[in-house]
């Protein structure tokens, strides 16, 4: 039976953290342990690029929808989408107006949502549904029913977006949002579907001598993280401090079959692993 403790003017509930400062490092370390519980270890996160896929329109979207309709029969996946050029346009106008970082973060999510609606409209006949913000506890029901959830990719930082390391643009976008969902739910892997074969040493659209990185560990990658990167830097920063996700794959969504192979555990595109060597 838990006791209520009084005597110092406050009413406490008996617990390890009672009366303690949660800024105290010694106190905080008591809450730590080696591992988190893995809530959905057999689920893969699939994030589809906004600029790289959706902004290309029908010819890029429809073949990918066909592939998603096929793979969803064999794999438990949660899909998220990026916003693409409309996000960049929103940012450009908002920055010109001098809106605060938190205000910009509040605005951009709407642009991703448009792509989510398009994808749902195309995938619904094969069994898909929009998932409300954090309705993760519905996921077993989705999978039992053969329904693939399409999640909100932008994290709910909104007005509370922390001051960025540089500039005024929010740091927490859809790449981070989907990664963090995979992380907190202990998912098997996060797969990013883009319009390149994976991560290159520099932007292959600008540099002919850019080299593809087929396999690498996060630890190695962080030693010399490509500045021009197909994924947001915040994803790598967060992953470095994270403890659950062990595998992130970047595949080319313009090449049919790549996503299917990645879901099957094959090493395609760029495979980044954390901890054990790839």
């Amino acid at each position, binding site marked *: 039976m838990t006791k209520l403790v009084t005597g110092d003017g406050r009413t406490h509930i008996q617990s390890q953290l009672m009366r303690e400062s949660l800024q105290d490092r010694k106190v905080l370390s008591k809450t730590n342990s080696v591992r988190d519980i893995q809530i959905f270890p057999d689920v893969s996160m699939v994030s589809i690029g906004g600029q790289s896929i959706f902004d290309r329109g029908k010819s890029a979207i429809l073949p990918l929808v066909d592939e998603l309709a096929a793979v969803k029969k064999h794999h438990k996946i949660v899909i998220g989408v990026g916003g693409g050029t409309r996000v960049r346009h929103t940012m450009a106008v908002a920055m010109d107006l001098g809106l605060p970082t938190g205000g910009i973060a509040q605005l951009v999510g709407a642009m991703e949502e448009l792509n989510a609606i398009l994808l749902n409209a195309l995938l619904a006949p094969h069994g898909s549904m929009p998932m409300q913000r*954090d309705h993760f506890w519905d996921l077993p029901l989705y999978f039992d029913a053969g329904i693939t959830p399409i999640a909100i990719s932008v994290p709910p930082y909104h007005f509370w977006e922390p001051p960025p390391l540089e500039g005024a643009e929010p740091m927490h976008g859809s790449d981070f949002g989907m990664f963090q969902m995979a992380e907190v739910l202990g998912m098997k892997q996060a797969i990013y579907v883009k319009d390149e074969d994976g991560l290159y040493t520099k932007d292959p659209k600008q540099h002919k001598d850019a080299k593809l990185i087929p396999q690498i560990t996060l630890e190695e990658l962080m030693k010399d993280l490509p500045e021009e990167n197909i994924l947001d830097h915040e994803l790598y920063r967060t992953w470095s401090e994270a403890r659950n996700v062990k595998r992130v794959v970047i595949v080319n969504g313009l090449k049919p079959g790549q996503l299917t192979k990645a879901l099957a555990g094959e090493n395609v595109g760029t495979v980044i692993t954390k901890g054990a060597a790839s």
Partner: protein
Amino acid sequence: MSERMTIPSTLSAAHTAAPNEYRPVAVMPDVRVVKIGGQSIMDRGREALFPILDEVIEARKRGIQVVLLTGGGTRARHIYTIASELDMPTGVVATLGKYIPMQNARMVQMLLAKHGGIYIMPDDFEKLPLYLQLGCIPVMSGMPPFGYWEKHQEGSRIPPHRTDAGVFLSCEFLGAKRAIFIKDEDGLYTDDPKKNPQATHIPRITAQQLIDRDLPDVVVERVVVEYLPRSRWCKEVQIVNGLKPGQVLAALEGQDVGTLITA
């Protein structure tokens, strides 16, 4: 293969071409963003809370616009303890941590209702101008809405962004210069005044000086100290003792009581 379709705009490259051109606009710079501590105030009950609310009501009568945000306290510590034992990920712990400050905000609203107290949700910032012009005192949870998206921080399972961070980030979004934290201490001391009678009060310190001291414990959440130097608007965090009559009203009127941590 199809091309990416982009939106042509004269602005689309403007910010990348000239990042210094960003000229931020303050949303509601005159608002006082005020935190009522959980463990330090709410868990003390009526004796501590009522006199503080009287001073908030008085400030409101004097035309000062106040937004109140609440902390969690001992019930938050209790659920954090149990969740940690169960190896819950930080994002789950952060989600659990949302509920207690929400209860506290509702308690404060019930007490302030007859004086214009109104409970607001995170997304209600856009309605603040109306509420404040009507003379209301909006009350909300101090917890930021990150929830499951709260990042894990090495060496701990407790979410690094809790209600101090939420108050600071609310203040930063609203474009106010100073976030006010009502606690049960006068602010910072050179040492723990309860244990060391020689400890002296620190009225003013910079975030960098505080970081340089590398204290094992600090009076506000560490992320607040980390963010202060790079914030655009919220450049000061003020800690006042809500148990001393007159301190809250003085702080709401803009006086430098308690401790100021500056950018």
